[in-house]
């Protein structure tokens, strides 16, 4: 009896009655630019800032309409998925008892790329892996992001579909290629052998894992071939997929390629003797965006062998303790031998931080860091830096150590203070704008002046129909001759009422851009920004002043 009572109690507890305070949402899903309702769209209502509340979902009817009832008041994301359309998301706020009936979400149709993959002899290549990669940005660098892959059928045909409008690269890989990785730097190479070095007390150190593995016995060698028939993505054709576009005849012929090796020695510049166990980092110039750019290579004996390298220009960096060096190599279709990388001690220099109108004290400096950066394509050598590199002490003085090379100055400022880097000089040289070229001992002190009176800008962003838009991206871009100063770029997005604010701006000349939708970081790509240059609003930021603007967002 007791048992039954509990069961009934438990069941009745589960069916809760809707309360009066519950809201409801009516809406419709339409094809973008039209009022045509879209059926069969899956609409999900997901409560924000709550992981525990299960989301509600529904499917649109013939006329594209959907309805949620008995919804608890709160902030929600509406996520819409529909085959053949780009997923969309919208944020709404529901008050208790509200009947929200004006929600309209437009969906953009997707496009497709199709074609035929064949082998060298023109025969269809069956079960080949075809990938669509989208051009995106990471720290201002172009990166190919995998979007979708498909396999060819027995006729060699493929079709990559439901692609959001955008710029794509297409590559095909021979089914025998296994998992492709461009570089192979294994020590033994070839088939596994039994000649493993034995060290007591530990397992074999064997090869450093950086290697790139082709399937055992796969010969000849296959690498991804980009449309149209190139293994170098920099010469590949970008395929612009518009909404609802069908791009066909994207045909690729997959031929085996000859990969080559780079062999050489790391030597001490002072003694001319080989340096054992240097860390060797290999990067392509420009890097292949869909590969890991900096594999390490075993150089235990001082010599190295970088295998399975595609043609192109490469830079090899060697780091051995305090010694660093680099060499550039142009690869055609044959192995490169006897590359010598001369390593030499890094250069030490001194510097000082000065805060305008103040005496420097420890609290200001606690989170302040100075460092030197090579181009973003160069490897990160910070592991070999001394611990106190670029950390100012007491009176603002600091020391820096860096290998030979070309650098830009990067100063990390404490977030708590409204300050900016006003100038940086080494003797008479303007390090902030011209960078720093290190090829020998550095005389003098690197003087960095911190300004305490930055400018600010605020404003509102409209669309073409003069409506204020939420979520638009606003970017402050430095004037043309300062575009290499990445730290001057500032980006934000507009709030619910279309407003934005950027402060802590270093005084100077800028251009202000706004986009309704943009790939994150694309503004750092000079090619990209060139096409929008005319839409930028020139702005002069004055010390301590606040600008106010209204801008129309680019579509």
């Amino acid at each position, binding site marked *: 009896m007791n048992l039954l009572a509990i069961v009934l*109690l438990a069941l009745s507890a589960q069916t809760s009655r809707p309360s009066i305070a519950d809201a409801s949402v009516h809406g419709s899903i339409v094809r973008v630019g039209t009022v045509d309702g879209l059926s069969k769209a899956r609409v999900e209502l997901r409560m924000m800032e709550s992981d525990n509340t299960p989301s509600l979902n529904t499917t649109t009817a013939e006329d594209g309409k959907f309805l949620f*009832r008995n919804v608890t008041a709160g902030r929600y994301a509406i996520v819409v998925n529909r085959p053949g359309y780009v997923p969309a998301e919208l944020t709404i706020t529901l008050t208790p008892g509200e009947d929200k009936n004006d929600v309209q979400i437009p969906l953009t149709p997707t496009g497709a790329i199709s074609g035929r993959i064949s082998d060298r002899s023109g025969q269809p290549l069956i079960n080949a892996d075809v990938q669509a990669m989208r051009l995106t940005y990471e720290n201002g660098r172009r990166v190919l992001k995998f979007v979708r892959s498909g*396999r060819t*059928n027995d006729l060699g045909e493929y079709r990559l579909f439901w692609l959001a409008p955008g710029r794509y690269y297409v590559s095909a890989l021979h089914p025998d290629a296994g998992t492709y990785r461009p570089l192979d730097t294994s020590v033994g190479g070839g088939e*596994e052998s039994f000649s493993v070095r034995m060290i007591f007390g530990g397992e074999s150190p064997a090869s450093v894992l950086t290697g790139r593995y082709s*399937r055992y016995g796969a010969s000849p060698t296959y690498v991804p071939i980009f449309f149209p028939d190139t293994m170098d993505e920099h010469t590949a054709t970008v395929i612009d997929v518009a909404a609802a576009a069908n791009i066909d005849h994207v045909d690729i012929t997959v031929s085996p390629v000859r990969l080559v090796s780079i062999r050489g020695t790391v030597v001490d510049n002072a003694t001319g003797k080989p340096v054992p166990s240097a860390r060797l980092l290999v990067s392509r110039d420009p890097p292949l965006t869909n590969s890991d750019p900096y594999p390490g290579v075993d150089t235990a004996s001082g010599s190295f062998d970088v295998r399975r390298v595609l043609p192109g220009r490469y830079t090899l960096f060697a780091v051995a303790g305090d010694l660093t060096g680099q060499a550039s190599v142009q690869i055609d279709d044959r192995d490169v031998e006897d590359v010598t990388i001369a390593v030499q001690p890094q250069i030490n220099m001194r510097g000082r931080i000065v805060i305008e109108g103040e005496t420097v004290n420890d609290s200001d400096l606690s989170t302040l860091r100075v460092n030197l950066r090579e181009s973003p394509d160069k490897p990160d050598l910070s592991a070999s830096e001394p611990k106190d590199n670029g950390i100012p002490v007491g009176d603002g003085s600091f020391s820096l150590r860096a290998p030979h090379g070309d650098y830009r100055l990067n100063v990390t400022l404490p977030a708590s203070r409204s300050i900016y880097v006003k100038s940086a000089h080494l003797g008479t040289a303007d390090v902030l704008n011209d960078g720093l070229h290190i090829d020998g001992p550095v005389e003098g002190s690197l003087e960095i002046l911190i300004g305490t009176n930055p400018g600010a800008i605020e404003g509102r962003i409209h669309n073409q129909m003069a409506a204020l838009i939420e979520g638009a991206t606003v970017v402050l871009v430095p004037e043309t001759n300062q575009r290499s100063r990445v730290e001057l770029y500032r980006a934000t997005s507009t709030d619910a009422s279309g407003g934005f604010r950027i402060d802590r701006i270093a005084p100077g000349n800028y251009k202000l851009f706004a986009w309704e939708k943009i790939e994150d970081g694309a503004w750092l790509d000079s090619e990209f920004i060139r096409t929008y240059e005319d839409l930028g609003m020139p702005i002069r930021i004055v010390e301590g002043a606040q600008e106010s603007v209204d801008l129309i967002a680019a579509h």
Partner: protein
Amino acid sequence: MNLALSIVIKTTMLLLFALLLSLSLRRAAASTRHAIWTIALTGMLLLPMASFVLPTIELPVLSEPALNESSYSEPPVVHLDNEHFQVGFDIQDPHTDARSAPAPIEPSRSWPLQRWIVLGWALGATFVGVRFVLGMLMIRAIAQRSRIPGSDEWRDLLVQLRWELSVFEHVQLLIADGPIPPMTWGIFRYTILLLPAATEWTAHRRRLVLAHELTHVKRRDGLTQLLVQAVCTVYWFNPLVWLAVHRLHFERERACDDQVLRLGNDPQDYAEHLLEIARALSNAPHVSSATVSMAHRSQLESRLRAILDFRLRRHKLTRLAAALLIGILAGLTFSIAATQLSAVASLAIPATWPLAPPVEQNSAAVSGQQSTAADATASIEGVVVSLGTGEPVSQAKVGLGKAGDDGPSPYTATTSDDGKFVFQNIPSGEYRLVATHSNGYIPVEYGQRNPLGRGTAITLMTGQRLAGLQLAIAPTGSISGHIYDRDGEPAGQARVQALRLAYLPSLFTADRSTRPQLTMVQSVLTNDLGEYRIFWLPPGRYYLSARPENVQAREWSQLTPPDTPLRGQWTSAPPVVTRRTLDSGEVLEEVYVPAYFPGTTDPSGASAIDLGPGDNLERIDMIVAPPMPARRVQGVIVDSTTGQPAVRASVRLVPHNLGHDTSVPNGRTNQNGTFDLSGIVPGSYFLVASLGEDEELTGKLPIDIGNANVQKVTLVIRPRFNIRGRVIIEGQRYPGDGPLNLSLELNSVPLGLMPFARSPGSPPPNVSPDGYFTFQGVAPGDYRVLVAEAEFTQTSYVKSIRLGAADVLRDGLHVTKEPDGELEIVISNGVATIDGIVVDGKQKPVANATVALAPFAASVYRGDLYKNVSTDAAGRFHIQGIAPGDYTVLAWEDIEDGAWRDPEFIKDQENHGRRIHLYEGSKENLSLTVIQ
């Protein structure tokens, strides 16, 4: 020290032999080579002991009197080091004079040296031992800082994988607080430790990694690791030991990789995950030698190659193979142990070793290829033609290998433009002949009755010239078309499956239909235009199904060309459930079921599509089935021990028939002990619930779901209990005439997705010398009792199994609580045998015919009574180990595998067969006419 040196040399020999053996088996599965190394290392520990115990044997090779002089029947103490050199010298030059006069060495010189050696050894051993202990302590520290993953997904995944891998040991899963490679340790209670990043892994990667680690548990690699450490501690000075350990680790990981791949995972995908995990851990410390770690970097490259090499064999080590390997290496260990130190000389003459058969076979094959002794050899020639058209096929690869060995063929040839092939200078013997072609053909074996059937062996006599053989290789075909939705719009990303009717394995027949079931051959997704194309299909009769697939689901599928040994494709995705809120506020839930060509949701109403060799069938268009209103099942799970609702109990609905397109709704009870499963297609199910990490409480309930939701279901889950029993041999108490090594097991009915039959972690029952056994931790449920052992089934049969008055053998075992009585298993060795010949209508013998023995009117629980064999080249067959009773014996030229287990089918064919009554110990002779 005398003894020590002899042990060193003997163990080195053992290792060298293991190395040789593993090299000769390099194309075998990694698990085999792992076993070789494990056994060899075990041998190294046993060898010193054996050396004391066993009598000494002189190797016949060393019969030269000079060598005997330096043998070790001399006083074994002082001049060891000297003799060491001497013996070494002897090997290189047995005719030198030096050996005949052992140079006396001053004790004062040799003793300090010995001491130094002992000291050195002790220091090394201490170092290695301490390192291991420190490693253990470090692991314990890490484990104490680790936490048990909170989310149910981990637990569910663990339970599911333990199911799939049949891991019954106790396993605890922990998440570490720092970056360490995934690792496993333990001997009786296992712990799997994952890195913190694991919590952010995709479900797919979790599954891969956990499957890998659980395989370590299943293989008891913790124990091997302990063994390895012991060997390293003792033999640290021997570089070969470290090589052996390195190889052992490598093969161990590969064996686990193989297991993961056998679960149907995509090799490429798995390799990528492995690489990424290793890369993420590139700075992680090497933690400890006390554990088994997955992402060890130094061996990764070779492992990745192995993973991606689909030609490799990946099977587990069978008991037979393990026994064989242990036999070979144990024999070797003892023979080496019993040998005097003079046996080092045999290093130069390895042919006198008790060589393992594989090595001999290998060398025989190699020498056979090069043999020119024409009179001792034979030749085979023939032609490869295309099935259907009969046209010659050029560029086909033809392989000739030993019958019964499905490894790579030692002899290969490529057909010429006229399709012809020739093998010359082949030693006489039994062979299998196989042809493959890379361009979309199904491999064919000589004697095959249909493209997927079994082949038959070719007997080659000395000097025979066998000509005119024909191999008909089947070109694959394709089926293509469009799939539309109900509105006539193309259905993008719909799952289309090519299905075949096939019989289920006998294990399933106790509870499921014995009629042939639709099973998946290949599956594809449509593109945005609704187009699909299924290719590389063997000729045959197909059915087609289509169903919309969850767009967000990640497809798990693998397609392999028809000329590779691992054929086919496997996919998995959750069902598509749509919900719609009506104006009334009511939520309508719908679910898609598969539609069968040409347009039905009832599989029995589906039309067959006959695909001839090389056919390309186009415009096979279909419309997906309308979504069906989905049903819900709500209820409460009650804990019988407390009478209270069970909180966080796992609940699942297992369909009676696990078909080609099945989803299993599952969930957990909430704080009130209630559950709510949605998206259910009407049908017959079992509601299965369990509580606790080791499913301490379980229950199941059959539920038929019709056109209404099912509410207020109450399922009581009950604790596990023990079942005691005994084995009796024909009225005598076990062991009777001689010990039988029996293995007993309980199999759930129905099989698949039921709770563990026995407590996870509890060992299968041991039968005591007087015949008693106990099944520990049995979950309440329905079972079949299996008595298994290969040797046993040939010589004995299970006469009866009873529990009190219940006939368990006939009716199965149905238990809800600990039974009062004992399970009584009676075994008899009065098995019957049948010998016979199969002939056609003209009384000519039929080779490669299938002969099946079907019990007459047997219960569904007696799948073990069915037997089948193939006839040899002379049409003869032999069936042994038959339990007495009434049977029908039938012979077919070509028959679907397992059809003889279908009583309806047998009934149709009965008048073509022979009814036979077999008594205990009957030996029948039959002549059967083949059914064509």
